[in-house]
């Protein structure tokens, strides 16, 4: 579903991704781990189409389609979702209005009819349960005044509403207490399915106790330096990242 080949990207002239290769198939959950500054978040943002980053080499296809030539909204409409590490506040725009505009933009792309207010609300109410949020949440402005945990839950809620083919979760576990972590993981697990791929970007193994990955990759200095199954994550938890970085340099 997602195929990354030799991806290089830089910001302000500084190279951050230095040849990333990754192959994610439908139905799989991949974890990308790595020390701070290794390029994990850059990878997530580049895939979503953030203009701050310049792609200097490489190729990415999504469902066989060249991804890098598409503007961010077309990537989203094609079925890619990014759960942001730091969801931004949008004062004055309510959650429900925002989500309806998003869902209908995506539905239009898929050749489906736009949902009217009643059908939309029914759809959304069901998804709210998934992240244990009440309805008052819908009328609040997007992320405005939300706690860290609420922001992260909102991202998962949006993912559930928009029903993407590929979801990239960027440090979704950071800043969550254990209860919130369980809710978020529960929401993600409910989304697992044979037609969907999920890429979890995380610094800690903790989240992977709840979202069991099929594959684990270690990103260091802009490259994937090691891949394995879930036991790799456990090894990293025990030994830290130092040994891998040393191996790479050595």
């Amino acid at each position, binding site marked *: 579903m997602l195929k990354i080949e030799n991806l290089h990207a830089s910001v302000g002239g500084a190279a951050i991704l230095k040849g990333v290769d990754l192959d994610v198939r439908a139905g799989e959950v991949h974890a990308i781990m790595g020390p701070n500054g290794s390029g994990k978040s850059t990878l997530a943002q*580049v895939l*979503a*189409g*953030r*203009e*701050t*980053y*310049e*792609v200097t080499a490489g190729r990415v296809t999504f469902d066989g389609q060249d991804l*890098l030539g*598409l*503007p*961010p*909204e077309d*990537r*989203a*409409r094609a079925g890619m*979702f*990014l759960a*942001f590490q730091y*969801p*931004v506040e*949008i*004062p*004055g*725009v*309510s959650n429900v*209005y*925002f*989500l309806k*505009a*998003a*869902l209908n*933009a*995506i539905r239009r*792309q898929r050749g489906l009819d736009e949902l009217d207010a009643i059908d939309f609300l029914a759809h959304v109410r069901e998804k709210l349960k998934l992240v244990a949020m009440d309805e008052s949440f819908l009328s609040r*402005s*997007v992320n405005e005044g939300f706690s860290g945990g609420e922001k992260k839950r909102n991202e998962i809620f*949006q993912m559930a509403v*928009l029903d993407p083919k590929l979801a990239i979760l960027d440090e979704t576990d950071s800043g969550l207490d254990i209860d919130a972590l369980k809710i978020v993981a529960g929401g993600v697990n409910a989304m697992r399915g044979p037609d969907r791929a999920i890429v979890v970007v995380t610094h800690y193994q903790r989240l992977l106790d709840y979202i069991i990955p099929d594959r684990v990759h270690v990103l260091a200095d802009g490259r994937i330096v090691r891949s394995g199954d879930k036991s790799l994550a456990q090894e990293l938890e025990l030994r830290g990242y130092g040994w891998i970085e040393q191996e790479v340099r050595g």
Partner: protein
Amino acid sequence: MKTEPGSVEALANREYKYGFVTDIESDAVPPGLSEDVIRIISEKKGEPEFMLAWRLKAYRHWLTMKEPTWANVHYPPIDYQDMVYYSAPKAQSGPKSLDDVDPQLLATYEKLGIPLQERAILAGVAVDAVFDSVSVATTFRDKLKSLGIIFGSFSEAVLEHPELVQKYLGSVVPVTDNFFASLNSAVFSDGSFCYVPKGVRCPMELSTYFRINAAKTGQFERTLIIADEGSYVSYLEGCTAPMRDENQLHAAVVELVALEGATIKYSTVQNWYPGDKEGRGGIYNFVTKRGKCLGARSKISWTQVETGSSITWKYPSCILQGDESVGEFYSVALTNNRQQADTGTKMIHIGKNTRSTIVSKGISAGHGQNTYRGAVKILKGAKGARNYSQCDSMLLGDTCGAHTFPYIDVANATATVEHEASTSKIGEDQIFYFQQRGISKEDAVSMIVNGFCKEVFRELPMEFAVEAQKLLGVSLEGSVG
């Protein structure tokens, strides 16, 4: 991974949708201003003597005045002798119904998306359409008449209700008030007049569509609304203008008078031609709007959405004379490309326990310059007066400007005056967040700006709120590259 910013910019270059000139034979006075021209105008309209005297008084005073320069706007000098001061579509004997109206004129309204009859009937709005200087069609008059409501053109009011006109004309904006108001008083050719009698609640929104058409004709409308004791009226004003190359002066005067316990709600969506991307052409909108809360517990509420004109100079104000009277001002002003707006309000508290609210939202994009200028004046006798002001500015891009000049003058120690202000920008991270959810850049900007203006839009009557939101979206297209 450049994602073709050009696509958004292309939209910015979209031409003004309402630009066209209708070819209708005009009955125009030659350019220039003199006492003779004023006499001609008055005579053509068949006005009584007091009107001519009033006009001449205004003109003579105007000759002693200088064009104001204190506003934060810049434009080349206006040649007042190069302007046409009167132009009326040639009407044979005055249309009795829509069937008698020049079909080409009706076609113009069609182009503007204002199907007069249908719109009036479906929306329950009585329309007094001002085309250039003379009212050509008025609907729903009979229904209003049965309630004793007088609503029609100013010219007719002068002839049919001279006592009301003589009593209230200039009572809020005197002929000596300011340069543009004095000019208007001297030469205004038409406008709207409304009188709502005691205790009557006007059952429909009253609406007028103003439109400038004949080339080189400044339009000087005069509107006077009087709400008698305990009455209520909501008045809507909206306008679009055809495209042309030269700047056009638009110097209107609106006077509102609210007697004891009366409420007047005045809503404007202003979309005059704003000029091209380089600022060529476009309307100079130098307007004096003022309401007087004459009686106790009266209320005047102004709501305006200003997206058009190359220059806007406008301060809808309230004189809160009656005890416990209430003044409100809700404003959205948007400047894009080379547009300049200097707008705000004055709340003059005279009576006891008078209250006023000011909510101003300024949006600047492109090279637009947006100034909020407001005065809150609490006079000595205004015991217990209260004001709350909120002025928010939003900047799109880094070549535009937002300026705020609040003047507060309190002469009574029991008064409470609050002022809040903020300035924000639409962040690249916010736009990206929308895009990542499948929403285009233009829609993102439009949604954020509409969210920013929500407090003002909810003051607008339903049909206007929808129009205003659309207008904002169109006016902003291409402002974020």
